[in-house]
């Protein structure tokens, strides 16, 4: 019996041992698999890093036309802080005639721009000197750090800007430890003390009031686990926390935590990590945050939506002040700093500042990269994309559109918000897209009208009709008289097309340039039919039109669709004297380590002949001085020579204005999304916005010097013949060299026939 009992006992013990071994083996297998998961996740790239998109950097140099107020505005846009004594990167002080700037270091694709301490001398006309503030040595040119304007993150995705532990202010990790996990540096991943304290607190309260998660556990939770709450999950969390601690140092865990933690939500974009948190809430790099700003972010960890400082500012401030108090208790800030920090306002950047500010432009950037990069390259690899966006031009375009539309609606007694608009600003030589607006809600990433709204271009097509004709100098010049008579054209489908002038009047025969300046339809059709719609279409294509409209007569008056950005390309080719540069929104792309991946260098190709383009531009200058564009000079100095063209479509469904100075092209479209007539013509709907944009971006005056194959001749406007000083109202008109009229106008003095060279000299010294 005894032996039996012993046997039983042995069996039980053996079974227990077996069971226990099995459990241990099972647990070991479980741990091994967790271990593998952890190591896999920690070893490689820990996060999918969205591409970061930067604006063009501001360059400071003597001669730059930037006054004190604008410079201040530019620096504030970059998140620079104004203070009496600039101290440390990202700070400045500015007076009327001088600015002291502590610039940030930035690694550009072509090299590091180190941080520098600058003294910039200012005059009302702009910067006169840029000096090193410490040595006094003059600097020729200094690039500021570019503004981060957005990132390309996956749909419903996480966005983050990676930081290194060594680069963050020490107050941040130490503050996090003080607030979230006091024993972080001594525990092995879990804190028994913490668990006991939490259990006690929860028992006292009767429900869960305190979590017991260490920083390591929080990281594990964010990194590997779903948000479900269960014992099983808690167990897994503890195991993983212990394993993580076994493999990695406290610093590695802290750095991962800094980059992983969830700090807010921006639409469908999740803001992760303190690097992006600093950008998102304060529009500055993390390294420049002060104690009250760090405290706000640290406080957010507990509940980014509950303490959302934009939505619940009072709650966020209370939390921030509590955190500041902990900082003070821990000796991270002294009493004086604590007292002044709790007095400071939250100091949030506007939600529209910094990251994700220019959705329409970033959309263009994405499309330009489409052929070259996979979507996953853009959302995962942390590429750095340097764009052509010029924040000042973008701001001007946005302001004029958002202010211009309500003004138009009010003036015309339209329903508010019934109008829509899109605009593009590009450089002339080099084809850089400097600003782009896709609709009146400029922060809303909706329908991008600048790229996707293909609308009838109306009279914007006319310069290409005239340019086609002016390429035949033996037949046409700017003074060629065109009939302004009704025409009736039978189309291939037997329809009869009978275009009319916009004002339904006939104005009598018109010189070619005047027909363009006044945007008369009938002379344009007469001219276009002589050169042929197919030839006109060829000219448009050479300028950059990419559509495949049939070469029917109605294209002469612009019954073809194009998006504003395409119109900008066509007009940019004219602005660049026929030397086309394909529009581009990107300068360089590099890897997150700073290795150059692709460059988008300036490309130039002559697609239209220079002389005829010059003559066309000359006529487009008359649009601005005596034609449909002249009201532009109500807001722009008349000494600024500009060329442009208005466009209005049937029943006023679209109002366009497109034009350029020496350095900038701008295109504005105004209309309704439902294609209904709105009662605005190009000159009344789009031109006011266009003019103010051109004024705000300080467009440079066109250079009136003709190219080598163009000569100028004094011309009698009445007859289009050669004039002299005795002809009243005679004007200098450019002609393709060798094709100026030789016949003298009746008004000219009948002197002995003069040699052409002497005549030419006379003209020069007049």
């Amino acid at each position, binding site marked *: 019996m005894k032996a039996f009992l012993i046997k039983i006992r042995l069996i039980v013990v053996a079974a227990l041992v077996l069971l226990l071994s099995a459990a241990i083996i099972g647990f070991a297998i479980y741990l091994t698999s967790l271990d593998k998961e952890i190591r896999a996740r920690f070893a490689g790239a820990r996060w999918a890093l969205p591409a970061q998109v930067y604006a063009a950097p501001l*360059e400071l140099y003597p001669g730059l036309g930037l006054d004190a107020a604008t410079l201040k505005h530019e620096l504030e846009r970059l998140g620079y802080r104004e203070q009496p004594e600039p101290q440390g990167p990202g700070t400045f002080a500015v007076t009327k005639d001088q600015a002291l700037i502590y610039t940030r270091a930035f690694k550009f694709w072509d090299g590091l721009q180190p941080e520098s301490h600058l003294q910039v001398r200012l005059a009302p006309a702009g910067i006169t000197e840029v000096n090193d503030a410490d040595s006094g040595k003059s600097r020729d040119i200094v690039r500021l750090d570019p503004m981060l304007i957005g990132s390309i993150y996956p749909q419903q995705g996480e966005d983050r800007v990676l930081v290194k532990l060594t680069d963050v202010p020490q107050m941040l990790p130490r503050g996090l430890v003080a607030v979230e996990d006091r024993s972080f540096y001594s525990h092995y991943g879990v804190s028994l003390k913490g668990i006991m304290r939490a259990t006690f607190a929860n028992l006292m309260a009767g429900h869960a009031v305190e979590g017991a998660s260490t920083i390591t556990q929080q990281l594990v939770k964010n990194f590997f686990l779903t948000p479900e709450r269960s014992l099983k999950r808690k167990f897994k969390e503890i195991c993983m926390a212990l394993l993580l601690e076994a493999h990695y140092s406290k610093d590695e865990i802290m750095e991962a935590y800094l980059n992983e933690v969830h700090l807010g939500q921006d639409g469908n974009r999740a803001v992760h990590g303190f690097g992006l948190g600093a950008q998102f809430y304060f529009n500055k790099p993390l390294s420049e945050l002060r104690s009250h700003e760090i405290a706000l972010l640290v406080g957010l960890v507990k509940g980014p939506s509950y303490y959302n400082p934009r939505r619940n500012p009072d709650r966020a401030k209370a939390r921030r002040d509590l955190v500041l108090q902990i900082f003070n208790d821990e000796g991270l800030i002294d009493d004086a700093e604590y007292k002044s920090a709790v007095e400071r306002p939250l100091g949030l950047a506007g939600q529209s500042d910094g990251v994700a500010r220019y959705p329409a432009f970033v959309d263009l950037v994405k499309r330009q990269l489409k052929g070259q990069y996979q979507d996953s390259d853009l959302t995962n690899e942390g590429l750095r994309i340097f764009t052509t966006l010029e924040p000042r031009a973008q701001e001007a375009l946005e302001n004029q559109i958002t202010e211009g539309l309500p003004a138009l609606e009010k003036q015309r007694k339209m329903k508010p918000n019934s109008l829509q608009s899109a605009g593009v600003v590009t450089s002339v030589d080099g084809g850089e897209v400097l600003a782009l607006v896709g609709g009146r809600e400029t922060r809303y990433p909706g329908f991008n009208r600048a790229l996707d709204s293909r609308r009838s271009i109306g009279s914007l097509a006319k310069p290409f009709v005239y340019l086609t004709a002016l390429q035949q100098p033996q037949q046409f010049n700017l003074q060629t008289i065109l009939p302004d008579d009704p025409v009736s054209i039978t189309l291939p489908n037997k329809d009869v097309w009978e275009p009319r002038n916009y004002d339904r009047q006939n104005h009598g025969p018109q010189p070619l340039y005047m027909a363009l300046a006044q945007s008369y339809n009938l002379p344009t059709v007469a001219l276009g039919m002589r050169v042929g719609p197919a030839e006109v279409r060829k000219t448009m294509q050479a300028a950059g039109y990419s559509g495949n409209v049939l070469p029917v007569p109605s294209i002469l008056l612009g019954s073809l669709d194009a998006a504003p950005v395409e119109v900008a390309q066509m007009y940019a080719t004219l602005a660049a004297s026929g030397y086309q540069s394909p529009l581009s929104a990107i300068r360089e792309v590099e890897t997150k380590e700073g290795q150059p991946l692709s460059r988008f260098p300036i490309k*130039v190709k002559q697609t239209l002949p220079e002389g005829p383009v010059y003559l066309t531009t000359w006529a487009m200058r008359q649009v601005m001085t005596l034609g449909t564009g002249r009201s532009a000079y109500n807001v722009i100095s008349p000494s600024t020579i500009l060329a442009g063209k208005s466009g209005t479509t049937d029943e006023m469904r679209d109002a366009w204005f497109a034009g350029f100075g020496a350095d900038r092209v701008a295109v504005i479209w105004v209309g309704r999304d439902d294609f209904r007539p709105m009662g605005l013509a190009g000159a009344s709907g789009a031109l006011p916005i266009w003019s103010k944009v051109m004024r705000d971006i300080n467009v440079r005056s066109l250079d009136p010097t*003709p190219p080598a194959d163009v000569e100028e001749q004094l011309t009698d406007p009445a007859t289009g013949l050669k004039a002299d000083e005795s002809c009243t109202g005679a004007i200098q008109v450019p002609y393709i060299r060798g094709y100026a009229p030789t016949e003298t106008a009746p008004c000219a003095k009948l002197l002995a026939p003069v040699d052409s060279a002497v005549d030419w000299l006379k003209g020069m010294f007049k």
Partner: protein
Amino acid sequence: MNQWIKLGALVFALALAGCQTATGRHEGTWPPQQTPQQPVTKPVYGTVLPPVGEPTPVMPPTVPGAESAIPPMPLPEKVSPNFPKTADAISGPAVLSLLRSAQSARAAGQYAQASGSLERALRIEPRNYFVWSTLADTYLREKNFDQAVSVAQKSNSLGRGNVYVEQENWRIIRDARSAGGNAAGAAEAQARLDAIQQLLQPTVTPQ
């Protein structure tokens, strides 16, 4: 014979081009603040200035066999077109500094760096034809022959008859075309180059 006619016509065209800036001036609005006779001492940054000094009309040398194309004109002692000869004359310090870094990058074979600096310079002075010309030369060395030719042509266009920048640009065009296998085009560029060199050194007028 025929080539002399061609050459004569070329020289004539160039000479006229040389005067062109002068004829463009009497519009009066540009440049706004100076009269043509005033020598310009300090260029306004970002503005391409016309040649300084007296506007001396450039007369083409008479070329035998080219009478039909050219009205008879006196041959000047020495052709001295008043065009800026180097970038220094028309560029601000920022652009000159960028030009220098471009040139040293180019010398080190770092063509992307060089074009990057030149593009920065062009954003400041978009019509600075010397910068465009340096960019053309960078494309040439990078063996991007099409762009070298296009950009050199653009520089010529902006130069508005500046024979000094044209001389450099036609050399670039010649080399780019010849390296790209366009012998006829290279020969044409060489002819333009010869014509300019003749214009600058009238003593070597062919007999």
